[in-house]
Structures are given as C-alpha cells and as structure tokens.
C-alpha cells in the first residue's frame, strides 16, 4: 500500500513527532530487509538510493555501496520492481542523480516512481534553476520533489527553494559530501533555523548527521533528520538487523528531545 510522503510527514510533524528518515542504497545485498528493519524500529520514511555510476554528492561509504550494487547488476528498474513488495506502511522516497531521470525522460521516470509506490524524490545534482522539467512531471505524477538547501545559499535564495519543495526541505548539514563526522557542524542547525523561519514545510537535516547524539542535537531546531552513511556502513559491516537496532537507538534519542 502506498503511503503519501507529504501528508504523512506533515501530520506526524504537526502531532509533535520528530522525523527520522534513514537512507539505504537500493540493490546492496540485504537492502530490502534493511528497509523493513527501519520501518519496524521507528523510521518515518525511507530514502532508497538508486545507485549511479558518478555520485558526486556522496562520500566513500555510499560510493562503495553504490559501486557494489552496480557491480551486482542493480538497475533503476530492478530497484523499483522490488518496492511494491516491501509493504512497510511508511512512505518511500528515492534519492538518485539526474542523469538517470534525464535518460528515461522526466515524465516517464516520474510515472515509473508513482507506479512503484514511491512518493518522493531527491536529486542532489538538480538545483533550483534546472528543476522545472522534472518538478512539473513529478507534481503531475504525485511524486514530491524534495529540494535541497545548502549552507552557502544567500537569504534571498531560500524562499525560492522552499516554494518549489514538496514533502520536506532537505537542509544540507555542512559543506561537504555524505559521510560520518565526529561532531555535528554548526552550519546544520544554523541553516535549519533559517529555513524554519521561511517555511511551514518540514525541514530535515541530512549530510553529516552521524549518530543518535548528533540527531538529537539537530532536531532541537529541525523537524527531523536524514541519516545515510551511518546506516549504510552498518548494513555493509553487520547487516540489516544492526540497521534496525541503530534506527531504534536514534528514534529513542530524538523522542527524548
């Protein structure tokens, strides 16, 4: 059963819940069970990575997972075909790079996502100025385009980004690519605060939110967090069960805020 990302996240947020969205690389061995483990342990949505050959916004961990998935024969179609059978009862979004959309054509790709039950999409190499074709197609297909905002954005840019955002706004936590860091960058809460001041759409911090403690610090300002590298590293090192245990730990930490 498809759960709509935008309505689900907004109603949870409005009910006072902090949002947790893990990222899992589609096609990496055990990815389906990892998503089920996320859902069973308190994730509000899951971001499924469709692996791309040249992931410029990703650090070493997600690069390795993407490369392993591609070498195992993963394709956008093979990931999307599996999505309906996940049946996890929480909304699912995809994260991928624009060439895979462009190659299919925005309308066809958006329709493929909708047919698979995916209700959100994150395209980190598609900035505001280039997003019209995709965003129109996604709106028409009922897929929320999750826009990214970065710490480098001047104030005048943020209202334009949030106006285009659907589902939630992805507040990039630091200057850099995905990966675990020792501490939460100061930019993380600063940008989340700037975004919260200009939008009612949920604001989630991602990139560089690396453990339960950092997640708890981020949600003091933001509506929630996205966690990628720390999830995927556990999937690669220990498997889906460890991902589930970790999601429960982060859940408890952000619920205690």
């Amino acid at each position: 059963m498809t759960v709509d990302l935008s309505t689900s996240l907004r109603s949870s947020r409005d009910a006072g819940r902090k949002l947790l969205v893990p990222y899992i690389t589609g096609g990496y061995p055990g990815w389906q069970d990892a998503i089920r483990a996320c859902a069973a342990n308190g994730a509000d949505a899951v971001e499924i990575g469709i692996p791309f050959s040249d992931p410029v916004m990703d650090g070493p961990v997600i690069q390795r997972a993407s490369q392993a998935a591609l070498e195992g024969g993963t394709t956008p179609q093979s990931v999307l075909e599996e999505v309906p059978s996940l049946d996890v009862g929480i909304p699912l979004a995809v994260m991928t790079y624009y060439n895979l959309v462009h190659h299919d054509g925005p309308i066809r790709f958006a329709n493929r996502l909708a047919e698979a039950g995916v209700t959100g999409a994150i395209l980190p190499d598609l900035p505001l100025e280039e997003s019209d074709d995709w965003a129109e197609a996604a709106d028409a297909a009922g897929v929320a385009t999750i826009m990214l905002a970065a710490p480098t954005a001047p104030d005048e840019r943020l209202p334009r980004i949030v106006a285009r955002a659907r589902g939630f706004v992805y507040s990039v936590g630091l200057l850099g690519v995905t990966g675990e860091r020792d501490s939460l960058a100061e930019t993380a809460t600063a940008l989340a605060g700037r975004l919260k001041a200009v939008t009612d759409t949920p604001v989630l911090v991602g990139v560089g939110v690396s453990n339960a403690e950092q997640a708890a610090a981020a949600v003091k300002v933001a509506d929630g967090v996205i966690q990628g590298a720390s999830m995927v590293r556990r999937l690669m090192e220990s498997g889906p069960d460890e991902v589930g245990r970790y999601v429960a730990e982060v859940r408890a930490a952000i619920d205690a805020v």
Partner: protein
Amino acid sequence: MTIAEQRNDSIMSEPDPSGRFGEFGGRFVPETLVPACQELEAGFKEAWADPQWREELHVALRDYAGRPSGLSECHRLGEKLGLRLLLKREDLNHTGSHKINNVLGQAFLAKRMGKTRLVAETGAGQHGVASATAAALLGMECKVYMGAVDVERQALNVFRMKLLGAEVEAVHSGSRTLKDAVNEAMRDWVATVGDTHYCLGSVMGPHPYPWMVRQFHRVIGDEAREQARALLGDDPDVVTACVGGGSNAIGIFSGFVDTRSRLVGVEPRGGAAVTRAVPGVVHGMRSYLMQDEYGQVEEAHSISAGLDYPGIGPEHSYLSSINRAEYPTVTDEEVVEAFQLLSRTEGIIPALEPAHALAWLVREAHTMQGQTVLLNLSGRGDKDVGQMMDVLKDRL
C-alpha cells in the same frame, strides 16, 4: 579585444543566461555549489571586461608562458600526405601544452576573487602540471586529483606536480581515470568552496566553465588565424584538433568558426561521445555522453590518458548538432603510427592526444589532396615517452 569578440552574430557567441549553447550546457551542480558558480560567472565577466586585468594576463601569457606560439609548416610530411600541413605549436608553451592558457586565466581570476587554494583534476597530467605551475607562480595552495590508472601511466607528470609543490591524490573510485578525478575534485570543492577555486581543465562542467575556458583558449585560434593568413593569404581549408573534453579544439575552432574552414575534432574510438550522440547530464553539464541503456556513465578507453573521457564539452555537442563541426574517431593503433610518423618526418614528438588529430589526417589525406590543413599540436610527447617505450620496444 579581437574582431570575433565584438561580433554578436558569431556561431560562438556567449551562451544564453542559463549557460546553454543551443540545448547543451547548463548548471547541474549540488545546491552548495550554485552560489560559487554564480560568483565565478560574475567575477569572470567583470575581469574579462577589465582592460587592466586583461593586460596582466596578456603579459603573463607572453613573458611567462611564451606566447604567441609558433606556426610551423611541415614540408616533408605535407609532401608525403599530398597536402599543405601547418602545425599550431602549443607544444612549445611553458609546461608543454595548451593547458597553461586556461590555467593562468583561472588562477589570476581566483586570486582576484580572493581565493587562496586551487583544486584541479587531471588526466594525462598536463592540466595538473599547469595548475601546479600557476599555483607556484601566484603563491597559492594546489591539490590535484588524478585517477589511479593515470597516476601509474603518467608517473613523470605526477613527479613534476609534486616538484612544483602541489599535492597529488590518486583516485581509486569508478574507472580510476579522468571522469573519476573530476568527481573527486567536485567533492573537494563542495567541502572547501569558501577559500577554494576549482580550476577545471577543459571546456566542460557547469556554467560558466565551458564558456570561460573557451575564452581563455581562444588566443590559440586568434593567433593561428592571423598566422595562417600571413602565410597562406587565406584561411586553411581544414582545421583539426583532438577532443577529450575539447579545450584545445574549441580554442583553435574559435578563430575559424565564422570562416569557410572545415572544422574537425578527433575523438578516440573508445571515447566517441559525439558519434553515439546520446545526450546526458554529468559533471554539471548536459552534453553528449557515453552511457548504458539505463543512463549509467560508461568508461572510456584510450591509449591517451588526456582523452580518456566519456563526455565532451557542451559547445562541441552544439557545433556537431548544427553541423558546423565534425567529430570522427581513430583507433589506438592509428595513433601509435601517427606518433612515430611526426617524430621521424618532422623531428617533433607529439603528445598522444594531438597524435589523434594527425592519425585522422593520415587516414583521410587522400580525400584532401592539395588542400591546406591546420592542426593544433596541443602538447609535446615527453610525458608519453615512458609509456611508448613499452608499446614500441620491439618495433624500433
């Protein structure tokens, strides 16, 4: 300011406000980099319009890089091929290739914009060496990303970069060649954008790079047109250059795009982005891109590290789409033959990259009998001698 720059009806005028040449180009970068690209665009426009800054750059190109580069007529090889062959001698520039034109431009610009650090990607190492050189000249920090495969086959250039004070990082992801070095340089820039300028080495990447890098290289075409007219009293029938990302080709084409000259960019058979003519989006731009049926970027394969790139600069895709330039391919074996031919008949050891253009000329010379051909000799072959020793050891 040259005559061509004053024309607004040139085929190579400014891209549109979104950075497109026809339907190619644009700015497909992570949000973090959008303000940096906008600043760079504004900074470049301002500097380019500043006569004093242009004069500083001109002096550096003259007194440091050794411009203007010469134009050599190849009498022996021309006779052998049945045509008149002129070489634009970018191989004689300081650091051994055309790359210095762009790098001096970008480094001077970065300095003007208050940046203290350069990052660069490199394939054959020529752009890396040029970047390290400019950083040393201007007292900037420099980090060069280079695919692990290329680090091995271009060991001499790795040492040169280190000697010049740059840090060289071998990139082990993906195909471990130029495309992966670009990815890693972009990742670095995402994290360091405050004090760092990404000194991109070709007419590729997000707007304003394809346009800006072309402007820095158009000195090749502007000089060559004057030199050819002085020698021939006319424009050449054919202008040819090798194409990876396509910076040396766009440089020489820019001097002739509005003339009657036939423009020929030569790609390696294993990196034939234009031949396949499928557009894609990677490295910040929409352009022809080698990719599989799902849109995953394919690995290019070429004997020359500098052309080992699955894409091509967007303006080349545009020139191809309007049939103003053509982009044939040559095999590695044809390149090896051409490399030796120029060495033996003219006493010039070319880099493997421009040997591609020569290989095309040798193969197709029978269709150009009696014509005048201008070939951009974009770099010298010193860096390739070690690799060619292995290839040719039993043949010499």
